[in-house]
């Protein structure tokens, strides 16, 4: 008899604990290719894999959050780093899905490639239930990416000029080592210190590794970080030149861009000098 009463008390307690979670999550769907994700399924996964860092309310205040830098994403604000949409707008479902596949390099967020694609789609649907923005707003218009023109030395050189003109080096450094004059002062939107991407490490950047990803990163900006959008100031045809130059800064990554740049006298000298740590190579000097 006592046992049954205890069971009842436990049940009521459990209901009281978990009902608010269930109530906060109203149903959402995600659409990735021909996959449809459902938030009810995503919820189960979230409370198994994600809430330790992102928190029961999706506000980034999970149990592990105090020990995690950069802080876990707060889904309630609806601000996301990797998007194909303009700065300040909501991402596509596909963008969130891609982030789950990739994980975030240099952070505690791992790749969730081990889940099935259906599970990831379900998680995307559930994550969208945390922010009221997904109910009232549509994702932004995707920033168009024109086909990549043929790689030429002139394109790399023009990209190098843009790197100067747009003052990318203020944070990323003249050699792309992430050590520009403003680098040490940068903070993200949670007021936590954050480092600009170090191109010379040749690591994958947070939002992907392809040429298209690079193009997308500076055109959309990385919301929630100091990296702004250049969509209003870089013309699409110029943007590809900048991509080609950025590739040559990844000196440990044998890209076609680096190979071509090293094939020129000017480029070879600069790349060789760049490989020596902490030296100023003058790569920023206009050719």
């Amino acid at each position, binding site marked *: 008899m006592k046992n049954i009463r205890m069971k009842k008390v436990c049940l009521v307690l459990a209901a009281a604990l978990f009902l608010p979670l269930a109530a906060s999550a109203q149903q959402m769907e995600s659409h990735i290719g021909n996959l449809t994700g459902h938030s009810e399924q995503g919820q189960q996964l979230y409370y198994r894999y994600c809430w330790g860092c992102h928190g029961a309310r999706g506000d980034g205040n999970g149990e592990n959050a105090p020990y995690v830098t950069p802080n876990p994403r707060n889904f309630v604000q*609806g601000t996301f780093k990797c998007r194909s949409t303009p700065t300040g707008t909501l991402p596509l479902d596909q963008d969130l899905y891609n982030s789950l596949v990739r994980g975030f390099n240099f952070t505690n967020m791992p790749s969730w490639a081990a889940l099935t694609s259906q599970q990831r789609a379900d998680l995307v649907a559930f994550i969208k239930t945390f922010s009221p923005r997904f109910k009232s707003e549509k994702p932004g218009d995707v920033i168009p990416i024109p086909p990549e023109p043929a790689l030429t030395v002139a394109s790399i050189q023009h990209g190098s000029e843009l790197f100067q003109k747009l003052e990318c080096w203020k944070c990323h450094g003249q050699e792309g080592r992430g050590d520009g004059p403003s680098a040490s002062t940068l903070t993200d939107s949670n007021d936590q210190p954050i480092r600009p991407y170090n191109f010379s490490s040749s690591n994958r950047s947070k939002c992907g590794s392809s040429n298209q990803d690079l193009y997308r990163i500076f055109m959309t*900006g990385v919301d929630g970080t100091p990296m702004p959008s250049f969509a209003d100031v870089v013309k699409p045809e110029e943007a590809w030149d900048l991509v080609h130059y950025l590739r040559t800064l990844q000196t440990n990554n044998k890209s076609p861009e680096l190979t071509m740049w090293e094939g020129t006298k000017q480029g070879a000298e600069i790349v060789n000098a760049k490989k020596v740590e902490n030296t100023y190579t003058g790569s920023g000097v206009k050719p």
Partner: protein
Amino acid sequence: MHIKYLVLTGVVMFATASVAFAGPGPSGGTITGKVTYEGTPAKMKPIDMSKEPSCAKMYATPVTSETVVTGPGNTLADVVVYVSAGAPDDAAPSSAAVFTQKGCRYIPHVLAFQVNQELKISNEDQTSHNIHPLPKLNREWNKSQPPGSPAITEKYDKAEFIPVKCNIHPWMHGNFAVLKNSHYAVSSESGAFSLANLPPGKYTITAWQESYGEQTQDVTISGSETKTITFVFKAKPY
């Protein structure tokens, strides 16, 4: 004859004037006053702009940060005084609120404007800035603006006080005050503010200072009277 003519002109003038006063248009009460502080505010630190020579050379002596701007007689400038309750929400005016980056500073330091009002941001410097407002309720965006690029236009659809920064120049710091109605003012260096054209009614007036927080006062306006109120903030020494 001459006198008659004069009297007639006088009558016509008086009539025109009274129509102008009695007719629809700006009328109602006014709330004016002053914002002051008591205690000792923190000394504003001089800004080291040596990393941005194009801006540093614009100042003979280094400028200071502007989180607390005081005037003679313990007055406080850059305080947003606005009707926080008692007035209906207003439609946004057609004019744009203008925010300028000049000398690696924001002008004005505190810009007040209305929900959905056009916000125009321009860069008059010889260096790139990134404009990075950090809202909690509104959308967060972050845009680069190299020298000579066209003005950025944006708007906010929720009322909020939004800190603004430039990540490239970490000393640059400003504020947007996005407000629901047109009854607001930003205190001048003499601490003075004036909220005009208030229809009779009971209002809650809020004064907001970026470091010292908010204060409110209830004011009742009847007819076209002018009421004077004072806000006194406690200065923080740090």
